[in-house]
């Protein structure tokens, strides 16, 4: 590596400062939530950004709340199932769309576009009605199904865009070198596609984890109510007291798995976004 010249150093300083600003913008509301969650109930109205006295009373309240524990389990289970299903279904379709010549290719993409455009609020009435007669109302499956469907376009698009960038000639080259079709696919294409699959899985998981509309319309009890609905409908010990501290503590608790997920898969995401570097 050559030594950076003066312009190079300025360049670094500029983008370094930019990074700090971006990071600050992204993290301030999270830090604010953590700070709120650590304030004593009496200090919630003090208008300070950081707590004067650190207290864990809000966490104690939330972690002993059976409704919150149930919501956490529901959210994790439902999002995980929906993610697994959506990625498999989308990968199959994306492969067909990118690699195979067939009459329905445009039709599938048009259908996916229709779903992506689709306003979920348009079907919560019918689903509410149907799910009650099918016994899916207030059940995991009642949320897994809409999450699977509504995350499909996102998964399908990100995967097929990703598959398109894969140098498929490598597969051909492997075949010329004597690999079987399955070997060529498994040893050459799958490793190239894996980062794309991880990226798609994260997009789907976050979609399911995030949803509030279906969760609030299609569930009513601890049996299937997920975290966003639980937090939005949180009531304090008395009806007249806004449980700010508890909401903040619950929010911090449910944000942890996501940050963990991002940290664990960071390398794969970066690899996924910089893949396709193989040329010529």
């Amino acid at each position: 590596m050559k030594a950076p010249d003066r312009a190079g150093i300025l360049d670094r300083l500029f983008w370094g400062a930019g990074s700090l600003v971006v990071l600050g913008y992204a993290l301030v509301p999270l830090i604010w939530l953590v700070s709120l969650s650590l304030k004593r109930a009496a200090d919630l109205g003090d208008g300070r950004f950081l707590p004067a006295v650190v207290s864990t009373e809000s966490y104690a309240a939330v972690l002993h709340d059976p409704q919150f524990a149930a919501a956490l389990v529901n959210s994790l289970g439902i999002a995980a199932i929906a993610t697994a299903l959506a990625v498999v279904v989308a990968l199959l379709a994306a492969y067909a769309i990118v690699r195979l010549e067939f009459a329905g290719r445009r039709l599938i993409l048009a259908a996916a576009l229709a779903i992506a455009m689709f306003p979920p609020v348009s079907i919560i009435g019918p689903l509410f009605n149907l799910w009650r007669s099918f016994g899916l109302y207030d059940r995991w499956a009642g949320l897994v199904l809409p999450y699977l469907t509504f995350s499909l376009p996102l998964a399908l698009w990100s995967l097929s865009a990703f598959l398109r960038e894969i140098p498929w000639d490598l597969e051909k080259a492997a075949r010329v070198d004597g690999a079987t079709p399955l070997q060529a696919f498994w040893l050459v294409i799958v490793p190239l596609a894996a980062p794309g699959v991880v990226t798609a899985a994260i997009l789907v998981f976050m979609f399911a984890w995030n949803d509030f509309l279906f969760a609030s319309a299609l569930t009513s009890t601890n049996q299937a109510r997920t975290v966003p609905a639980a937090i939005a409908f949180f009531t304090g010990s008395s009806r007249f007291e806004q449980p700010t501290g508890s909401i903040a503590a619950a929010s911090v608790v449910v944000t942890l798995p996501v940050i963990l997920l991002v940290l664990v898969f960071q390398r794969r995401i970066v690899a996924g976004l910089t893949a396709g570097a193989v040329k010529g």
Partner: protein
Amino acid sequence: MRPRGSAEQRLAWLLCAPAVIAMLAVTAYPMLYALWLSLFRYDLRFPGERHFVGLANYAAVLESEVWWRSLLNTLMITVGSVAVELVLGLVFALVMQRALVGRRVVRTGLLVPYGIITVVAAMSWRFAFDPTTGFVNGLLGLHGAWLAERWSAFFVIIQTEVWKTTPFMALLLLAGLTLVPEELLRAARVDGAGAVQRFFRITLPLMRPVILVALLFRTLDAFRIFDTVYVQTRGAQDTATVSLVGYDTLITRLNLGLGSAVSVLIFVCVVLIAALYIKGFALDLSTSGRGR
């Protein structure tokens, strides 16, 4: 290209079958059901009184001021948030691509708003702008109750949307940035093109398809805004969006007939927006990159 056989056709349909079934069963069928329900007077509180009313529900919705106000509110939120997100998203993507020190930290940090549940983000900003618990007033030396007044409530809602979804935009755009060949930029630099010129003449045109996809997704997403408004104002101060009106009619008031008419109208609006992108900007989602 070699001729393709019917075996390939069959395989392709087989691979696509699960996706097609899921899409038909959970959206097309319920949507047709909504279309059907919208032609009836049908209130779940009085299920016995269900009867056919033709297009009367649509007439009722289109004559109500609530619908037109909520449509206007939704469009304002959509245009406001998506415009800011595009610019910020491009800046963030460039920072992520160019920063040499701590680039991984920035990417991870930027994934946090995207990962945070919208309801949680809306709560966080609601508490931040709250006159008693918040810090924003203290920071700016103001005393206003932001969510108690229409325009400041819109500001809080839009800024929550921007904070929450700019990372999505930035990550999509970053993926587009990596498709811009580094040699091309270096060659342009050698030929004397400045940083700004390189960005507008090379980077942006090459990223056009990615930008359009990102814009399409975000515009449609913003138009359907529900969570943030529900948590921050619940539609008070005349901030209700079309999704909120639909939800209240369907789930809170259990009026399936009228609510379904609202649902169908929201669907029509969304189709119009998508048509604008696809026809207006010639966005082609299926053929790009084929046959290379």
